[in-house]
């Protein structure tokens, strides 16, 4: 079949759980051209943080950037504000943050594993992993008070302690997962049909991963040992010395395909279990918050001036929040979120080219996209009723203009 035609995947498609559009140029079953269109879910979260909310309210707003990474985003934002306002975090709080972040990683990776299995039509594995995931959700509920929105972060610490009972439950839960881990590994890495669908599918070479700045498991599966927990440790990771997981740890070879991404994620679940056990054993005692009085904290943030960047290794990759505070103003003067999916969407193009239509869902899912995290500016010219997206060239031009203006003002 020499005739080519275009298949739109998205914005609404069973394979994509959130709105994003892929235009596929297809010849028969083969994909010969891919284009990605983002910006269907711009929600103005940053705007609310900069105009309506005070910083404390923004914690809970940042939690809602993404339903799954709702430890990473607040943690990242809180870190940025702590840097900007120079708040020192007590050590115990750092450990609790680490445990919460790793619990989230376990739940996110198990969720991803289920979704990936569903994308290749293996619903049994989907239901099975999600059933196993319930245990970590119950643990999270026990420790933080809710299954999904954990609301545990606060500027200068955390809001809840892990008490005796909680630690006991956590240890039991980790034991359960260490036992079940072998079964999950057996299902995912040894099942012939899963291997058939994922081996040598959606290959991202090391060069492409570096060139397109892929982050998280996506880039680690291509053999780039890039992990914020290892490179720029935050919270309690500095004491543990995390090592980035690349697929060659498992079987000594790096393909950069979907199978390798499964390997990386599963090994990370195991790593998370180890980190949680380590953190529980080495947790120091002490206060939870740098400033217990919330009213005083609020005033302090209002007076603070400065800027800070928070970097967190979310389950999907590196998450960055930039926050700028201005004295006398309650809302953030500036707040920019760069979620990991933003970097992981462009690698779809080299992954999909030359593949089949059947590969689209699993390849797209293999980067664990979270479209609600990702946003891009759509500028609407109201007068001309025209909508356009800011391209790189236009952005560059604007940046040059602004730099010139700043330089002129500086003089």
């Amino acid at each position, binding site marked *: 079949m020499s005739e080519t035609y275009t298949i739109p995947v998205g914005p609404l498609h069973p394979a994509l759980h959130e709105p994003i559009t892929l235009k596929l140029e297809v010849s028969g079953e083969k994909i010969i051209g891919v284009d990605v269109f983002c910006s269907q879910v711009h929600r103005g979260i940053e705007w609310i943080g900069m105009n309506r909310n005070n910083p404390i309210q923004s914690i809970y707003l940042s939690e809602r950037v993404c339903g799954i990474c709702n430890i990473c985003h607040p943690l990242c934002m809180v870190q940025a504000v702590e840097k900007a306002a120079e708040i020192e975090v007590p050590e115990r709080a750092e450990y609790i943050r680490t445990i919460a972040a790793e619990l989230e990683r376990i739940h996110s990776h198990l969720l991803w594993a289920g979704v990936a299995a569903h994308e290749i039509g293996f619903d*049994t594995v989907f239901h099975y992993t999600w059933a196993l995931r319930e245990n970590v959700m119950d643990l999270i509920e026990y420790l933080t008070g809710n299954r999904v929105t954990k609301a545990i972060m606060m500027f200068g610490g955390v809001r809840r302690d892990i008490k005796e009972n909680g630690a006991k439950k956590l240890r039991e839960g980790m034991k359960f997962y260490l036992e079940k881990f072998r079964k999950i590994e057996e299902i995912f890495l040894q099942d012939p049909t899963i291997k058939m669908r994922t081996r040598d599918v959606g290959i991202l070479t090391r060069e492409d991963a570096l060139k397109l700045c892929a982050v998280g498991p996506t880039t680690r599966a291509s053999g780039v040992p890039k992990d914020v927990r290892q490179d720029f440790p935050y919270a309690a990771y500095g004491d543990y010395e995390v090592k980035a997981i690349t697929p060659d740890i498992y079987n000594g070879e790096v393909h950069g395909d979907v199978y390798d991404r499964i390997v990386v994620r599963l090994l990370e679940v195991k790593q998370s279990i180890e980190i949680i056990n380590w953190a529980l054993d080495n947790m120091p005692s002490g206060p939870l918050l740098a400033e217990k009085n919330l009213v005083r904290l609020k005033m302090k943030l209002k007076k603070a001036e400065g800027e800070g960047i928070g970097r967190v290794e979310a389950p999907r990759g590196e998450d960055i929040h930039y926050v700028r505070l201005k004295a006398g103003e309650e809302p953030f003067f500036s707040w920019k979120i760069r979620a990991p999916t933003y970097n992981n969407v462009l690698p779809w193009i080299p992954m999909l080219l030359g593949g089949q239509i059947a590969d689209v869902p699993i390849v797209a899912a293999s980067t664990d996209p979270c479209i609600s995290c990702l946003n891009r500016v759509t500028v609407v010219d109201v007068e001309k009723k025209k909508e356009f997206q800011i391209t790189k060239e236009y952005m560059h031009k604007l940046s040059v203009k602004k730099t010139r203006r700043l330089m002129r003002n500086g003089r």
Partner: protein
Amino acid sequence: MMINEVWKLLFKKPKTNKFPAKYAPKNVHQFLRRVQGGKAKIVPPVPTPPDFRGKIRYDIDSCVGCGLCAQVCPSKAIEIVRDKKWIIMHCKEGAKLAAPLKIKIYVSRCVFCAQCVDICPRKCLKMSDEFLLANENKLDKSLIVPGP
């Protein structure tokens, strides 16, 4: 290999908690009426852990109306209102009759972060373990705290 696993699962009890009933009832209201009449039984939900963040409880009498909770509420679910009861207030100009400030919480807007509970200086807010809050009307009496 899932082939071996499915056989084991076939004879295992399903993991699902069958709340509120094994199959969705044809008519929910009818089902609830039958439950109240004792004709049907609800399968209990998974128990909530201690310190669960459910529907908010408000002790109106110890509230001083400082309004801090409304300031930190991320979803603006808390409204500051005048109390229905008038009391004698003592201020610089002497005693006068006034309605003190109280709050009204719209649970349908609440995001259950418990930030107001943390900031309340009089500890008159508390999260309960009630979580079955679905309702057709977001301004229903059961979704406004304090109740009428």
